[in-house]
């Protein structure tokens, strides 16, 4: 029984550690498979206001910069550009939405990309070729070999499949389903010589032995000409350029326009910390259980000693025992890890693979950790045991001395409970914050709205038909087409013209291009003026609606009628949360969609039908009949909103998982300690029963001390958890207040769990016959 609990405890500990190590290893391995990674850098653009102090760092830079750098700096060996964008690929009538990597032939000189079939470099020199990843090839062509076959790209270009490349590795900061020439990128012709557009990411390969910081300093030579050119072009800001090591992107970079949401080294530290803590917990647990078990078996130790066992023999025996158990636990943990890996991947949204041949060193180091764990966990109880007085241990009552107030076991238990309680508080706080996200009044409605994104001029041309066809359904009330969803408006840029801006200051405005129905459809409230209306012809060409924050920032008391940007203000909308609740409400303007603003955007549909599944089907079919070549995916706005908080959701899962595990381990430790305690006091309990104590009295006698220990743990854990969760909550401009109910709830959970644990063990002794326990002579 004890060995079982011990193995379970150690197994849980080691399994968690294996998972955390896998995660950390995966995160640290990002982009490391590129052979020249140590010489590869990404170009960053920092936008600075010419007079004001607006700064923003982008991963996008103007294309002419790359040409210029290659020509002017001999230390640059190679330079390429990367953009990733979704596009449709069609074979016959079948449509596939896929992620395309737009680059040039230098891509293969800088990054290690395995070619499985066909050619590579030459492919990216012309606009008529395409490289597919293995998975994409299978998806589109099934079993037939795709090389040499044609694909219709975005419904207009016929491309020839020139080769198959390996799938983009999970631990690479850019992912793709196919690779094509950057000349296919929309507006490439325009951008290629334009210093004013930043749409491409530049990656450079430095020659051996070159210091990128050196080159960084040399890049300042662009500052003055840029400043002049931008000023002449009517801009109040100008770009500065710098380099960033590509190997740092995943863990140290969180800039605008990253290719994927990067992780942070903070998470690595956090999880490593948790991993070590869980190992510690498992080890403490082992010690507690071992001591309590040895106590019960103290006679055995006495006999060994009488038979002439030396201290060394006994140490060897008991440390050996813990080593065997920990190695056994290691093997079970590995099996468990392999078994649970898919679940773990799901949880983190990763695709980590574990294979014996490739991860030999990983397994070896995990085994080493387990051995060290076993040794450390075994040595203390063993030393403790060998010190026990021989005669007393034979008599079985070597606990008859009044002990110190706190034993090591007690402190270990307090430690375990601090962790368990702390993690539990964290998970409750994360959970509450998540709940807050979904319940917060946003300033618009996200219920009963379906949406789909599109990226084609074809749809733009058929807007009215789409609108009319969709509205034919009796349960569709409104249809609106806008540039962005209200939940996450990212497009922004400087505005320099407004009434009262005598100093020609520049202000960053978020922007949304909408239609007549948008504001009404998402139920935004106007605080001044009116919404866009067909009755006023000028609304379409020069009407602007700003939000309250913008009005405040502009220093206006009223807004309607004032000059703004390229027109006039017609209304002020009540502030709504235009981004995730991590951010405060930013100044925003809305204006009508016209001309080229319209070639990509979102179609929003308001329905009063609760069965979204049917409604989605109807919309998809209607869209197909109007624009058969478009790839349409209908989503509910509520789901899309919830996805904003995916990382918080994951954090919540992880916290509650670890809280559960540490509570489990702590309970096991408690179980061990209670057993120890009960054994120690068996005689006393017997005497008390003889003297007339009730069973409840005995139960309290046994639990009292532990209840006290748990209270101490609570006292220590609560401030720590409070402080750290406060720090976390500060990431969110809109957040919950931590109140005592959270701590009470957690305290209650921990206390009741512990009391149950205590009762399970103490019950036996409570109902036992005192005659047995006092007959120790």
């Amino acid at each position: 029984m004890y060995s079982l609990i011990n193995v379970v405890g150690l197994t849980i500990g080691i399994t968690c550690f294996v998972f955390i190590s896998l995660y950390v290893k995966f995160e640290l391995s990002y982009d490391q498979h590129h052979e020249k990674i140590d010489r590869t850098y990404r170009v960053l653009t920092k936008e600075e206001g010419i007079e004001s102090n607006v700064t923003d760092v982008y991963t996008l830079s103007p294309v002419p910069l790359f040409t210029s750098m290659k020509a002017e700096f001999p230390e640059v060996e190679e330079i390429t550009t990367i953009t990733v964008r979704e596009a449709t690929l069609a074979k016959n009538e079948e449509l596939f939405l896929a992620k395309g990597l737009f680059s040039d032939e230098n891509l293969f000189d800088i990054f290690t990309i395995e070619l499985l079939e066909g050619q590579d470099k030459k492919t990216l020199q012309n606009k008529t070729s395409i490289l597919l990843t293995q998975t994409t090839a299978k998806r589109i062509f099934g079993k037939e070999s795709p090389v040499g076959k044609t694909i219709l790209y975005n419904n207009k270009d016929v491309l020839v499949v020139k080769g198959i490349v390996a799938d983009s590795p999970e631990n690479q900061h850019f992912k793709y389903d196919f690779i094509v020439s950057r000349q296919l990128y929309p507006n490439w012709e325009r951008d290629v010589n334009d210093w004013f557009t930043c749409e491409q990411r530049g990656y450079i390969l430095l020659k051996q032995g070159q210091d990128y910081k050196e080159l960084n300093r040399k890049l300042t030579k662009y500052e003055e000409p840029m400043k002049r050119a931008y000023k002449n072009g009517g801009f109040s800001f100008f770009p500065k350029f710098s380099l960033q090591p590509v190997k740092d992107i995943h863990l140290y970079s969180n800039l605008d326009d990253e290719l994927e949401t990067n992780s942070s080294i903070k998470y690595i530290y956090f999880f490593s910390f948790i991993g070590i803590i869980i190992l510690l917990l498992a080890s403490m647990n082992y010690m507690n259980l071992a001591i309590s078990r040895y106590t019960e078996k103290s006679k055995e130790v006495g006999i060994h000693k009488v038979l002439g066992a030396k201290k060394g023999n006994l140490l060897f025996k008991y440390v050996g025992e813990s080593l065997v158990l920990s190695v056994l636990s290691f093997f079970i943990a590995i099996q468990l890890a392999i078994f649970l890996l898919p679940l773990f991947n799901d949880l983190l949204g990763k695709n980590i693979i574990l294979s014996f041949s490739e991860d030999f060193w990983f397994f070896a180091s995990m085994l080493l950790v387990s051995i060290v764990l076993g040794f450390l966990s075994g040595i203390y109880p063993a030393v403790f045991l060998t010190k026990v007085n021989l005669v007393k241990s034979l008599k079985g009552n070597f606990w008859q001395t009044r002990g110190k107030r706190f034993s090591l076991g007690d402190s270990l238990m307090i430690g375990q409970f601090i962790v368990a309680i702390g993690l539990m508080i964290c998970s409750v706080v994360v959970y509450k914050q998540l709940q807050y996200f979904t319940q917060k009044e946003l300033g618009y409605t996200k219920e009963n709205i379906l949406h789909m994104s599109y990226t084609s001029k074809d749809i733009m041309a058929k807007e009215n038909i789409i609108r009319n066809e969709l509205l034919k359904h009796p349960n569709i009330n409104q249809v609106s087409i806008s540039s962005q969803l209200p939940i996450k408006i990212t497009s922004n840029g400087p505005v320099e013209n407004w009434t009262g801006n005598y100093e020609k200051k520049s202000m960053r405005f978020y922007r949304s291009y909408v239609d007549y129905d948008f504001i009404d459809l998402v139920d935004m409230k106007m605080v001044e003026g009116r919404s866009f209306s067909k009755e006023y012809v000028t609304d379409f060409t020069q009407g602007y609606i700003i939000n309250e924050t913008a009005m405040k920032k502009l220093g206006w008391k009223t807004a309607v009628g004032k000059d703004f940007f390229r027109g006039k203000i017609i209304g002020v909308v009540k502030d709504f949360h235009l981004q995730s609740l991590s951010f405060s409400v930013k100044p925003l303007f809305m204006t009508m969609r016209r001309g080229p603003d319209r070639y990509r955007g979102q179609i929003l549909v308001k329905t009063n039908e609760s069965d979204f599944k049917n409604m989605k089907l109807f919309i998809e079919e209607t869209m197909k009949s109007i624009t058969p070549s478009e790839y349409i995916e209908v989503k509910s706005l509520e789901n899309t909103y919830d996805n904003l908080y995916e990382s918080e959701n994951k954090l919540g899962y992880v916290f509650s998982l670890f809280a559960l595990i540490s509570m489990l381990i702590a309970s096991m430790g408690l179980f061990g300690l209670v057993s120890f305690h009960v054994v120690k006091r068996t005689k006393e309990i017997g005497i008390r029963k003889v003297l007339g104590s009730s069973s409840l009295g005995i139960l309290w006698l046994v639990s009292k001390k532990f209840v006290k220990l748990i209270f101490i743990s609570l006292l220590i854990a609560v401030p720590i958890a409070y402080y750290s969760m406060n720090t976390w909550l500060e990431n969110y401009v809109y957040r919950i207040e931590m109140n005592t109910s959270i701590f009470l709830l957690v305290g209650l959970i921990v206390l009741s769990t512990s009391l149950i644990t205590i009762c399970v063990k103490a019950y036996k002794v409570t109902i036992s016959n005192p005659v047995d326990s006092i007959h120790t002579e």
Partner: protein
Amino acid sequence: MTQRLLNIHQASRVVKSGGSRISILNEIDFTASEGEFISLMGPSGSGKSTLLNCIGMLDAFNHGHYTFLDQDVHKMNERNRSKLYREYIGFVFQAYHLIDELTIRENIETPLIYKKVKPSERKAMVADMLDRFNIVGKKDLFPEQLSGGQQQLVGIARALVANPKLILADEPTGNLNSKQSIEIMELFSELNKEGVTIIQATHSEENASYGSRIVNLLDGRIITD
């Protein structure tokens, strides 16, 4: 005629040991009246301690009848049984069985706490006992700081504090030297004269001679009474 305190009729205690059943007490017939000082004698394993424990309701007979103050003990539930012995019975053990974590005063006080005696009353009763046994000066010491004889004195004080009708003593002098033994036995005989009924289990003829009646046991049976 003195009042009958307890009556045991045809009582047996059988335990399972491995596959076989061993009878520790066999068809015991035993009566005790108030004011008696009975010594149970017999060699190790004769069943003295078990009989004592059964009388004290710490253990139970498997068969037969046991009445204590005219109440059927074998028919009672545990709660009432423990209420009964808490009220009327005090125990004295060979190994004293004092609680190591508690002081002398607290040790003597414990049965009163379980009997739900009020704190003020408790204090007076404990002080009484300390006085009577002349151990006032030791009241704040812990058991391990006392000699064996003194510890047993405390054990007896604890057994007496709640004014029991019956004291059960299992080899009360087994761990003591002869001088201490004599002191304890004289104390018992004094208590008996004051009206406390005592049943002791003992090996020693000398100790047994303090009693008013000797019951001899062998292999779980009463051979002479």
